[in-house]
Each structure stands twice: as C-alpha cells, then as structure tokens.
C-alpha cells in the first residue's frame, strides 16, 4: 500500500484546490440568494388559501425532490436556451455559471420552501393573535413577531441545505465549471489518474473543515438570534 499512497500529494493538493473555493462560494452564494427567494414564494403558496397554488407548489417540490441533480442540470443547461431561442434570445454564449446557478436555485428553492413552511408552522398562532390584539397590522405582526421567531427555527435547516449545496460541486463540473471539485478532477487528470485517492482525501479535508466552520457559524447565529428563547428550551 505504501507503494501507492503518498501523503505529500494530499498536502500539495490543498493549496492548489483552495483558490477554487471562490467559485464554489460564488455559485453557492447566488443560488442561496435566489433559491431562498423562490423558497419563500413557494412557501407562501403552500401556506395560502388558494388550492391551485398549493398544488403547484407541492407538485413542484415533489418533482424536484425526485429528480437527480445531474438530470436537472442537463435539462436546464440545454432546455433553457432552447426555450429562450423560441423567444428570440440566444443564451448559447451564456457562461455555464449561469446554468449551474439556475439549477441550484431551483433545487434550493424546493428545499427552502419546506424549511420555511415548517418554521412558520412551528410558531404558535397565539403569537400572531397577541400581535394583532395589541394593535399591530398583519404585516407588522409578521415582520416583527412571526418572522424573527421562524427565522431562528429555520436556521439549522437552512445551514443543512447550504451544506448540501456546497457539496454539489461534482455537478457543476459536468458542464465544465471548475470549482474545488472540478479542480480536483483536473489535478487527477493531469497526473494521468494516478494518486486520485490522495487528491480526494485532500478535497474531503477541505470540505470537512468548511462544513465544520459553517456548522459552527450557524450554531453561533442561532444562539445570537434565539436570545429570547433560551429559557423556553431549557424549561
């Protein structure tokens, strides 16, 4: 085994990979931004009274949950330009980042719609009633009382979804986008596929550390925002 395993490859791969985290962050950042918005809209549809909207939102979530990411990516990567072409827009020159972001946005939106919905439903209706009973308007009640509390409930799940997203790099690589995962593949290819194990170990170290940082960050965030709920949880 020593014949093949050479740990220097691990340590050399890490600095080579790190710069490509930028791309990972860039894609994840945009997807989180748009995906959360989409999730919010879907969650509102699910929570609303309108049966048609409800069904659309639920159906959307089911289909997206059941679609392997790679398939979704190809559908978007080739489907969206084809559709745009019908409207006379040429998207073939669009950077692949664009399509990866759309794919992740659609997926993240489906995930977030459930996160937001369950967070909202976890807030006791009494909070809303108390808010309007002291003379707040609907919007004020949501903004000042419901959302801040639902936000705290949603945080850990949001963190989880974010982690999942960061790990989807392999997907982006299939259409040529080079993030950390893609860079690892390129390094391996440039070594003619030798020492892939070491490179992947280096990659997994990066991911692992990153995930721990994100996890800790979200724990902190949760602690900061849940200041009011501390006692409740202990009781």
């Amino acid at each position: 085994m020593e014949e093949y395993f050479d740990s220097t490859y691990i340590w050399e791969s890490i600095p080579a990979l790190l710069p490509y985290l930028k791309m990972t962050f860039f894609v994840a950042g945009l997807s989180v931004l748009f995906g959360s918005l989409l999730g919010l809209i879907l969650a509102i549809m699910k929570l609303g009274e309108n049966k048609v909207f409800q069904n659309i939102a639920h159906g959307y979530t089911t289909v997206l949950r059941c679609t392997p990411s790679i398939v979704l990516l190809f559908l978007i990567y080739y489907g969206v330009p084809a559709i745009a072409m019908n409207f006379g827009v040429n998207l073939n020159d669009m950077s692949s980042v664009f399509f990866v972001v759309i794919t992740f946005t659609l997926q993240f939106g489906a995930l977030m719609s459930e996160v937001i919905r369950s967070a909202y439903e976890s807030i006791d209706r009494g909070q809303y009633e108390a808010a309007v009973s002291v003379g707040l308007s609907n919007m004020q009640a949501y903004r000042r009382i419901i959302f801040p509390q639902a936000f705290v409930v949603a945080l850990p799940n949001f963190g989880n979804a974010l982690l999942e997203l960061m790990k989807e790099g392999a997907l982006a690589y299939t259409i040529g986008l080079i993030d950390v995962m893609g860079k690892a593949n390129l390094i391996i290819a440039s070594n003619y596929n030798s020492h892939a194990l070491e490179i992947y170990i280096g990659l997994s170290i990066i991911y692992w550390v990153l995930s721990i940082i994100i996890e800790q960050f979200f724990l902190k965030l949760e602690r900061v925002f849940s200041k009011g709920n501390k006692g409740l949880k202990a009781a």
Partner: protein
Amino acid sequence: MLEIKNIHKSFGDNIVLNGIDLKIEKGDVVVVLGPSGSGKTTLLRCINFLEKADQGQAIFGDTQVDLKKASKKQIYSIRKRTAFVFQNYNLFNNKTALENVTEGLIIGRKMTKEEANKIGKDALDKVGLFEKYDAYPGELSGGQQQRVGIARAVSLNPDIILFDEPTSALDPELVGEVLEVMKTIAKEGTTMLVVTHEMSFAKDVANRVIFMDGGVIVEEGPPNEFFQHPKEERTQRFLKRVLPEDYIYNI
C-alpha cells in the same frame, strides 16, 4: 360602553354561539362562567375579531360595527379599544418583558420609544415586575409571564380588557399572584370581561356573573345572588360540580 347583539358563530355543523346579547357599562367587571366547550373563548375572540362571527353587532360607545362584515379599518379601530389577556399568555418570545409591553404602543400606536418605555415601565411596576424589564418570557415563571400579559393589556389603555382564563395555566400557588393583580386593576375602574373558573374572584370582584351553556346565556346576575340562589337547574348542577360541596353554602 360595549354592547354585543345577537352573536352567532358555528364551526362547520357545530353551533358554538347561538345568539348572545351582552351589555357592559364602563367600570363593569363581568365574569363569564360555563362548562368546557360552551363557547366562552369563542365569544371573547369574536369580540376582538380573532374569530369572525357569522352574524352579530358590536356597539362601542358611539360606533356600531357589524361583526361579520367589518372592514379592516373598523377591525383595527375596535382592536385599539380592546385588549386581550390570553390563557397561555402568548407573550412575544423574541421580545423582553418591556418590549412586549411597548411593542403595541410603538408600532401599533406610533408612540415614541421614550413615551412607550415610560408607560411600559409603569405598567410592569404596577404588576410587581420592577426588576424584570429585560427578562425574556422564557426566563419568567408562568405567573410572571401572565402578569406581563396583563401589563401589556393595561398599558394600551383600552376601553375594555378581555381575559380568557388568565389563571388556568398556572400552578395553584401562582394563581394568587395574578388574581391579586387583576383585583388591583379592577379596583382602579378598568372595565373587564373575564372568563375564569376562579369562583373567589367572581365573588369578590365581579359585579355581574354570566353563565353560558350550549351557545346561549343561561343565567346572569350579581355574584351573591348567582352563587347562593342559582335559578336555573343547569346552573345549579354546574356550581355543584366546580365548587367544594360545602363552599357554596358558606358564602
């Protein structure tokens, strides 16, 4: 000051309020009694539009509102004249005691923060929570939480405060605290409509007791009369069940 006329409310097939009329004068303390499921909570909630009645009128001083068809504006204006104290307190979990009290003043009534804080602190002082301004609900005992709830209602300076079983989620020992506070504010002349099972409160503080069952008012009267000589058979049965056997005859 508040008059309710002919409230009807059903949930599906379940007729919960079946034509209730109620007249409350300024300074009245009216206690509503009744078995579980008789619609007491629903009555209070309809008055405050937390539930939309199927039919009925509310007359607040000079303004008359249709309980079914009230506009948003009318609803806000009535909510401004009422306050609600919930059985489960329903304090804003993400706000301190003081913020709980001032939230409605600053955001709902557009007061400045200073004004609101002054009023809020006074209200908290009144319910004996001088030192808990900055505590979050989770850090308070049930009795303390409910007192914040009362302070929140009082500080709005409403025409009437609606109480829905304000002590029933409390440990027996803590009940005393809250009833004491309620007595105090009642004595200051606050108009109150109180759903409660605390007979001693009804007896000591109320000037009228209403007994509801099956969505209608079965009997009403001043407390002494009500407890000592209940006229209706249904009322007698109820009182027998909720009072220690000998208590009723000893008042």
